[in-house]
């Protein structure tokens, strides 16, 4: 299919005709370039759809992987997310950056999936051994610089194990903050909660992980 191939899957039949839904909306959080890309996607421009996937696929896969802990599941979820994005893009109103809106879809899909999946497939999640294989052997404590306690591989593995035991919403808030670097208001939009709720979830999550750290030191 050529670069100007036009897909019809986002067009909605209204009053007997096909109407584009990228209408006049308040694109307060979307820059001009992004708004133009969205408008092109909403006309079914396949090249624009390909661009949108290219721009966001890495962050979608990465978040899915961190939330589910399984590479195959994360890839599968990533595809589902983009299909969902294209099916619902016409309802996007620029109330957030497109990236944040996509985060929200990833989180909702991951939340639905992990409810049953985590119970059935925990053994295939990324294990401590996989972690160590990826990052090398656990450092000895003497490798820690004397004047500042740097994160060691051992600490990292333990923290991720503790992170995996946190409630989904606390874990997601912390991953969005620490890995993806989202602001509190962006996390709030992605999770569909108030900023105050984000603060309390981050605090509770860190308190739990801090207890894990204290356990490591004793």
């Amino acid at each position, binding site marked *: 299919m050529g670069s100007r191939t036009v897909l019809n899957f986002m067009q909605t039949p209204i009053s007997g005709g096909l109407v584009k839904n990228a209408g006049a909306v308040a694109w307060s959080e979307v820059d001009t370039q992004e708004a133009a890309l969205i408008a092109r996607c909403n006309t079914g421009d396949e090249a624009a759809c390909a661009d949108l*996937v290219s721009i966001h696929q890495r962050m979608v896969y990465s978040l899915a992987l961190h939330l589910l802990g399984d590479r195959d599941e994360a890839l599968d979820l990533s595809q589902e997310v983009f*299909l969902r994005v294209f099916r619902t893009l016409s309802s996007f109103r620029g109330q957030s950056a497109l990236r944040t809106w996509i985060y929200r879809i990833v989180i909702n899909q991951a939340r639905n999936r992990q409810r049953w999946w985590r119970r059935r497939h925990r053994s295939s999640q990324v294990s401590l051994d996989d972690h160590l294989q990826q990052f090398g052997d656990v450092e000895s404590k003497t490798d820690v610089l004397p004047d500042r*306690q740097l994160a060691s591989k051992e*600490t990292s593995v333990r923290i*991720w194990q503790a992170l995996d035991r946190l409630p989904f919403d606390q874990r997601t808030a912390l991953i969005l903050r620490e*890995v993806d670097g989202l602001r*509190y208001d962006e996390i709030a939009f992605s999770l569909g909660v108030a900023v105050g709720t984000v*603060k309390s979830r981050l605090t509770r999550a860190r308190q739990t992980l801090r207890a894990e750290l204290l356990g490591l030191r004793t």
Partner: protein
Amino acid sequence: MIPYVGCEYAREHLDAFVDGELSVDEQVAVESHLRWCRTCAARVEDVQLIGDSIRLGSLAPRADDEEAQTVRHVHSSVLIRVRAEEELSFGARFRDMFTDMRLL
């Protein structure tokens, strides 16, 4: 003048302090508290260490990874499925057309 704040106030704001989410006044107040309170300063270090540990163990694919290549397959897979949906919807429309004709 920098306001004095105690441990209770500081601890309520330590996470937001580390995350850079405080107003300038709040940031200055917490910073001044941390200069003399070793306990709260240690808590800040712990929060930072937790963040560093999470990033260190992050599973994000690297650009030169085989996995990064796998991620690129998401791109083609999605477009293939989008086309398949499009074709499916065309098929459905085609069948509907004949359904309508049968009704005639």
